[in-house]
């Protein structure tokens, strides 16, 4: 670039409106040259094909152009109205969990060669992302003990929808069984996803005492719907945080019907609990958010989708899949998108799903995370959550005014606790709020039969002092609110 003298700089400052925007490089003289090269007199002429009566002639009611500095200040001032979990003692989980994110994860994922790339349609120049996604598939396969994994979906919820649709493609049957005790928005999304293809969603109950599947009732529902069932879905741990001790039996009942057995899982739990593959799953689904992704107010997340190695099932899978192959001219390894004839850009209206953009960068983040923590880290994280959750549940159980845990079944990192008084919930929540404590997800609206219950989640982020502050607040609450 030519060096400017001071005299040249000063007039430039006065005529600053003539400078181009930092994102729009063409100068006025370049614009003229380009228009001339195509025999067009003005940019406006490029829009002459649009009928005049349709043209938008007004001014868009949008903010003025903000400089970077102004943009940053504006957004900071808005976001400062949020209270972050750094400044709360939060026991919220229910599908999104606060876990520690090692610095390596954002440092790698934000490398611009990754973050500014598109879907790897040109594989020769996209080997980095392709290998990363192949390693992602491989790690989820190791966690689930299922060979076939796609390279990501949007979130747990939509992944459940896709699993239900896959079960009907693979079995040609139209009834899908789910626990009535799953996260309500998960059930509602499933209902939306199965509306078009006209799947019938049938729910089955849990045992009121254990919080686990009521196997007898499930068996009678299966009997009632025999020969119509495309799949049976169960979560382990389930929405209450409870481990399903009869899950293998559920799988056997399912396979007796030649239906697909689908298990929803928390990836962190697989450091401790038996894998979906070993429990007999044909499909395992989950959310990868706990694997190195911020909570981000609920998105983006990472839909995990793993399938048993079966020729019929692989052709019915939704989503992109990365394969390992070689160069044409050598035996050197190379990665590429494969089995694409299932996908919308080839198969169009007969595709297994409409998914195109997925959550690749989130998958890469979870790959970096899993590489860092390794098998021992995963086990240790699972054990830490287990120990801390049990510690909190036991301490809460010492209050006469609280039933903790609500269910008798063994639990992992989440559990339900209940205020024995049916009228204290509002004041309990409000009192805790004054102490910057969120005691968990209130279940009163969606599951009124559980009474004044909260679903509490505990991870390695929950410190001993967090728990003590919470327990002190509970003690104080009951002292001042008519308890003992």
């Amino acid at each position, binding site marked *: 670039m030519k060096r400017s003298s001071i005299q040249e700089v000063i007039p430039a400052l006065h005529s600053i409106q003539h400078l181009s925007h930092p994102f729009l490089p063409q100068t006025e003289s370049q614009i003229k040259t380009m228009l001339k090269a195509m025999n067009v007199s003005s940019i406006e002429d490029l829009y002459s094909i649009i009928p005049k009566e349709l043209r938008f002639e007004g001014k868009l009611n949008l903010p003025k152009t903000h400089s970077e500095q102004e943009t940053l200040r504006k957004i900071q001032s808005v976001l400062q109205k949020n209270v972050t979990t750094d400044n709360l003692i939060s026991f919220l989980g229910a599908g999104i969990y606060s876990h520690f994110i090692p610095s390596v994860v954002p440092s790698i994922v934000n490398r611009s060669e990754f973050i500014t790339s598109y879907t790897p349609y040109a594989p020769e120049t996209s080997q980095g992302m392709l290998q990363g996604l192949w390693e992602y598939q491989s790690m989820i396969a190791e966690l689930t003990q299922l060979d076939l994994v796609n390279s990501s979906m949007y979130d747990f919820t939509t992944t459940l929808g896709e699993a239900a649709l896959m079960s009907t493609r693979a079995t040609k049957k139209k009834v899908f069984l789910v626990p009535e005790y799953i996260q309500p928005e998960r059930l509602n999304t499933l209902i939306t996803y199965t509306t078009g293809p006209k799947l019938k969603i049938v729910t089955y109950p849990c045992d009121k005492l254990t919080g686990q599947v009521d196997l007898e009732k499930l068996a009678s529902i299966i009997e009632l719907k025999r020969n119509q069932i495309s799949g049976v879905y169960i979560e382990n741990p389930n929405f209450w945080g409870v481990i399903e001790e009869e899950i293998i039996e559920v799988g056997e009942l399912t396979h007796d019907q030649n239906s697909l057995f689908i298990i929803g899982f928390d990836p962190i739990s697989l450091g401790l609990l038996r894998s979906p593959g070993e429990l007999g799953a044909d499909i395992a689904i989950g959310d990868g958010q706990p694997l190195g992704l911020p909570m981000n107010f609920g998105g983006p997340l990472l839909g995990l989708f793993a399938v048993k190695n079966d020729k019929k099932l692989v052709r019915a899978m939704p989503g992109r899949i990365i394969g390992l192959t070689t160069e044409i001219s050598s035996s050197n*390894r190379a990665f590429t998108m*494969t089995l694409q004839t299932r996908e919308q850009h080839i198969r169009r209206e007969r595709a297994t799903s409409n998914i195109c953009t997925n959550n690749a960068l989130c998958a890469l983040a979870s790959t970096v995370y899993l590489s860092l923590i390794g098998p021992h880290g995963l086990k240790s994280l699972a054990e830490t959550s287990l120990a801390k959750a049990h510690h909190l549940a036991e301490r809460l159980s010492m209050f006469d005014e609280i039933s903790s845990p609500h269910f008798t079944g063994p639990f992992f990192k989440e559990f339900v606790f209940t205020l024995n008084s049916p009228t204290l919930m509002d004041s309990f929540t409000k009192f805790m709020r004054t102490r910057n404590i969120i005691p968990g997800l209130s279940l009163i609206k969606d599951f009124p039969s559980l009474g004044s219950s909260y679903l509490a989640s505990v991870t390695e982020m929950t410190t001993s002092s967090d728990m003590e502050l919470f327990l002190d607040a509970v003690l104080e609450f009951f002292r001042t609110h008519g308890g003992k």
Partner: protein
Amino acid sequence: MTQFLNFLGHMEGNKVFKQSKWPKTLIFEKSTPGRTGYQVPELSSEEVKMLEKAKRTISSDLLRENSPNLPEVSELEVVRHFTRLSQMNYGVDSGFYPLGSCTMKYNPKICDTVASMNEAQNVHPYQPEDTIQGSLQIMYELAKWLAELSGMAGVTLQPAAGAHGEYTGIMILRKYHESQNNLAIKNEIIVPDSAHGTNPATVSMCGFKTIVIPSNNDGCVNIDALRSSVTNRTAGMMLTNPNTLGIFEPNIKEITDIIHGVDGLMYYDGANFNAIMGKVRPGDMGFDIVHFNIHKTFATPHGGGGPGAGPVGVVSHLIPFLPVPSVAYNSTSDFYYFNYDHKQTIGKVRSYFGNFSILLRAYSYILRLGQTGLTRVSEMANLNANYMKAQCARIHGFSVPYGENSSCMHEFVLSAKKLFKETEISALDISKYLLDNGFHPPTVYFPLIVPEALMIEPTETEPKEIIDDFIQVIRNISKLAYSGKKEGIQNAPINTSVGRIDDVKAARDPIISYRMLKKQKKD
């Protein structure tokens, strides 16, 4: 001078660009038992006791026997592995990425900066409303801005990507017809033959039948074919405008009138919205439902395949059908809140409220450009595309079969049909040779109606010098092909981290995880 050197580089056997060629060692193959890249804080002695007690509550047949076979590597090994992978990848920050229909524009860094703030990241979606006023305000304002840009009355920010937006939009269409007691009859949706594959795939997922209509000689909707396809079974039509050929449908008002005439709804696929901001709005064209590809028009990074965001806008009488919740504002109390009061809602399409960190980036992008800047974005995108089209159409062996003599919008489709016929150099060969010259290739072999298609979308953020370099490579290809010096093109790419890839082998004998690779090695 720089330009001249670049030019020489291209002429003298691709000396300009070289991608790293690190060995393709898997992270699993770098594993050494006993190593780790992470430390979990130690448990207190009380917690250790609790751990043993808690474990005993779980029966042993439900506990994992063998730890998962994850790699055991140190922190530096992880950093180095993935850094090397990044060096074998190509993004917009690496160079020109004229991938048609994908709008690979510059992704401003300020947008990543704001998305990485604690106040954005460390917020749980189930927190009480008074603790999430910042996030709610961002969503409320962004929805309003998108409505303004598209001429719609209401917008949901929930859909996770463009195709998910299509899904949400067509479910709204479905619910609308259901509310009119018309769903039993209205079971067809019209899609042009030039449409993205996601359109017909979405139609099927929502339980409708796709009716494909051919394009006319100008690449636009064939009005006669449309009229003869429209019946009382027509539930609606999905259209991209400008279409995938980069051509604005001049008869759009007639098209929307025809569909509305049978009580069908018009769906606007926003893949090409970058061409028209501030110039013409889908609402004014007669569309009822619109999706936006936030990761295209609003510059959020595509992350090697996602995440994106696909908000959906609707006209006022469809607002009751939007997924719940939307974000509302009470100006009296200056309070933002979730509104679940959409009487005929399609329900939920995903968990929580949307891909917030992506939406936040779009919010900051709109602030950066503002009212006048966004219109300028579209103007410059169209200028760059038209300039490239005019230059490329003149190159021997190439043509622009649709819209050669009229203006295109933000992209155009170049055909190498003649070149292929006369020299056997195909669109695929061209795309590989472009790689060797440091460019990401255009979208090839799409739309399906153009033989040897190269779909080129330069975007507004590329300087003329880069565009000229690209055009020069296309000229060189033509010269080399017609002078019989084809080896360099046919053997391309050689400067990328791998050469041409055996896709047939990948599909015939799929190895899609390390577990499968190990099993194959055993066999």
